[in-house]
């Protein structure tokens, strides 16, 4: 695998080389094979296509690619235009120099990397860029991309409402209509209501399978890193492709197969993914998560027969989070429910440096857990940094404490 290929797989070559020389031997068990696919080392016989493969094969069939920044967006809407949404969570470990020339040092690494990523060769596979409005930093990034930083791809901003109630749903429905019109004018194609609905049903099926994987976590013979490679494949696979793989995993569900000190991971994303390997090595096991890239996006199906409204209902049905303006109390109750149902003994808040929305909620969430004698710890990271000994020591000490 050469550097370009590794980058297009979303893998940082520098870290990859670093890791080659490290003792994370088991990490390679899950690296993409020469065809770009990820073979699971567990007893489950699963093969997940790599990101680049997924993009190539979709394009080979006449489709286009939408690069999508975090967090929420209507997948079905893009698929109705034969566009595959592929999510960009940074990506981690790329050279952030370009981003640093446009953004101050106190802007988070996801946003900085995303801006840098627009200048890479890998980004050329993206045909259109979608910037959902998750926070001030992503809002600013969207604006800079529209106003100052010239990229070849059209940029579509998407505002996510936070007011709660019916007017929130009505607004989101209209916002999706606007995106539809932009895509219509860009592609020259106008998907019918039936086509839209079919795509919605496909996505809902994939979402339900994803939710079911989370629910069956204890009964899947997958290590943490394998599990997150599987569920995060939803970030770039088609709904149909993901559903097929998820079904295979479901078909092999067993009685409880995993043990380890059960914990919940809360934050934005589990990067570097080697973290998950390390948690397993220390005897920990992630039984549930409150991650923006994962557990906060388990969307229930919509109810309406009208496509835009149905997509809005689905997205707004996700777990409470600041990205929807949910009260902190709701977030706390959600965490407590997860702890109760998963049997977790503690929570690791795994935060990205400068992520203001997470940082505002943190003290009250921790206090709420503490009042119920549920231990928690906080780790801060930058997606460009390697996994530090300090981080590992803190998590190890935490696991020892709750063991």
């Amino acid at each position: 695998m050469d550097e370009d290929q590794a980058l297009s797989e979303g893998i940082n070559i520098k870290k990859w080389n670093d890791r080659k020389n490290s003792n994370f031997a088991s990490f390679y068990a899950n690296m993409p094979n020469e065809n770009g696919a990820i073979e699971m080392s567990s007893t489950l016989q699963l093969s997940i296509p790599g990101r680049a493969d997924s993009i190539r094969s979709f394009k080979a069939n006449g489709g286009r690619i939408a690069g999508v920044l975090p967090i929420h967006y209507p997948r079905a809407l893009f698929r109705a235009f034969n566009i595959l949404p592929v999510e960009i969570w940074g990506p981690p470990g790329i050279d952030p120099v370009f981003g640093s020339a446009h953004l101050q040092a106190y802007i988070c690494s996801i946003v900085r990397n995303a801006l840098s990523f627009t200048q890479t060769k890998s980004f050329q596979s993206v045909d259109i860029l979608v910037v959902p409005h998750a926070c001030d930093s992503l809002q600013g990034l969207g604006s800079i991309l529209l106003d100052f930083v010239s990229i070849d791809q059209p940029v579509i901003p998407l505002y996510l409402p936070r007011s709660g109630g019916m007017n929130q749903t009505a607004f989101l429905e209209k916002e999706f209509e606007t995106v539809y019109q932009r895509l219509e004018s860009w592609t020259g194609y106008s998907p019918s209501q039936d086509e839209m609905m079919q795509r919605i049903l496909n996505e809902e099926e994939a979402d339900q399978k994803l939710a079911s994987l989370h629910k069956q976590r204890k009964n899947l013979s997958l290590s943490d890193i394998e599990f997150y490679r599987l569920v995060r494949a939803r970030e770039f696979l088609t709904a149909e492709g993901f559903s097929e793989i998820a079904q295979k995993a479901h078909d092999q569900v067993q009685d409880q197969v995993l043990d380890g000190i059960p914990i919940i991971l809360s934050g934005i994303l589990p990067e570097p993914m080697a973290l998950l390997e390390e948690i397993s090595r220390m005897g920990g096991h992630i039984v549930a998560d409150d991650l923006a890239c994962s557990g906060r996006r388990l969307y229930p199906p919509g109810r309406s027969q009208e496509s835009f409204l149905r997509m809005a209902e689905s997205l707004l049905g996700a777990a409470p989070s600041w990205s929807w303006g949910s009260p902190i109390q709701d977030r706390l109750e959600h965490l407590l429910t997860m702890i109760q149902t998963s049997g977790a003994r503690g929570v690791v808040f795994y935060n990205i440096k400068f992520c203001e929305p997470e940082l505002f909620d943190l003290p009250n969430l921790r206090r709420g857990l503490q009042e119920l004698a549920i231990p928690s710890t906080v780790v801060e990271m930058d997606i460009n940094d390697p996994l530090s000994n300090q981080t590992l020591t803190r998590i190890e000490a935490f696991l020892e404490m709750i063991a």
Partner: protein
Amino acid sequence: MSAGDWLRYTWNVKYLGPAALRINRWLSEYRSRKDPRWNPEYLAPPLRTSFRNKELVGRHWLEGRYANLNQKVAWVTSGAPVEIFKALDYYVLYPENHAAICGTARVAVDLSSEAESAGYSRDICSYARTDFGTLFSGKTPVGNLPKPDILVACTNICQTVLFWYRVLAYHFDVPLILIDTPFVYYEEASPHALAYVKSQLEQAILVAERVAGKRLKEGRLREVARLSKMASELWLELMERNTHHPAPISAIDQFIQMAPIVEMRGDPVTVDFYAAMLEEVDRRIEQGIGAVRNERKRLLWDNLPVWYRLRYLAEFLGEHGIVLVASTYTNAWGELAPMIDPDGGLDAMARAYTYPILNRSTWYKLETMRQMIEKYDLDGVILHSDRSCKPYSIGQMDQRDRLLKEFDTPALLLEADHNDSRSYSEEQVANRLAAFVEMLGA
């Protein structure tokens, strides 16, 4: 209200407090005439109306101390549609202004430390940390803060206020009204965005009425909106007087004088105050008095001020004959004046509150700066890269480049924080300012 409470409120708020504030104003005026605090060698003496400002703002916070005895209290963000709450007779408190007072009083770091001890990161907005510090410690330079009956957060200035007010709602367990104003990426807000804001205003009125225990009267809302518009227009006129050479009122003066337009918008006293200030500024123009005695260069300030170093900045620049003539920040409270329409109902209100500069694109801010450079005949721009205000600061690096390359206007990016002096390096700021001053040829 019990008889005892009535007596306490009336005595303190109507008689004793105002008398003390009036005496304090006279003393301040007297002391200032004898020995001005800000270097008179470079800077004009303070406006006489500025002492009245201190008294006015003092009275507002004095009322706040006892507000829980007398009326419902709303804590609101600086961009919130305050007219609704004023018309329902709420006492309206602005935590951002409180934090700024703490910043100028140099107690913000101590208060932030209290918040940090409670688990809040130094990477969150220093205004929020300052106010959390007051919540946890009870310490404040304004005596004490009344407890809110309702919280109102409008996202037209940032998303941070949403996260901040969720913490307040959790702490006080009172209703949080959120007015979510979709960010305007293009020249115009979409019709569905405006409809969304309007529907939230309708909902907000219902909640505000329920908490207040009274109905909102249309005539009263119109009257408050009219006063709001008058004050905003006067504020805009005041700033526009700086098209004169020399500029009669610096942006640093404006930072100090802007408190009433932010926290007392919709009050008749605010209109009277700015009308009086405008008269005084006009007299300055007639007499040829400039804010800086020997004005040689005129600059624009972008972003919030560095509250704890206003005097340093004024004196440093004044010494070199440089005056900060305008600021995108103070301009924000004037530029919407034409959009405030007392007879336009909630449609007009939705428009006005969707369009503040902070809710608009990075291009719009650059265009505003370009227009201000032209209008005020400016020689350069200082962009305060404010660690605590991401939405205002993102885009500044590109804006600076465009100012330099496309508008041939010197521009300096200055790293600091509006309230937390720990993120401010005097040495570094002095070096950068000195180099910039040299480049300007001042």
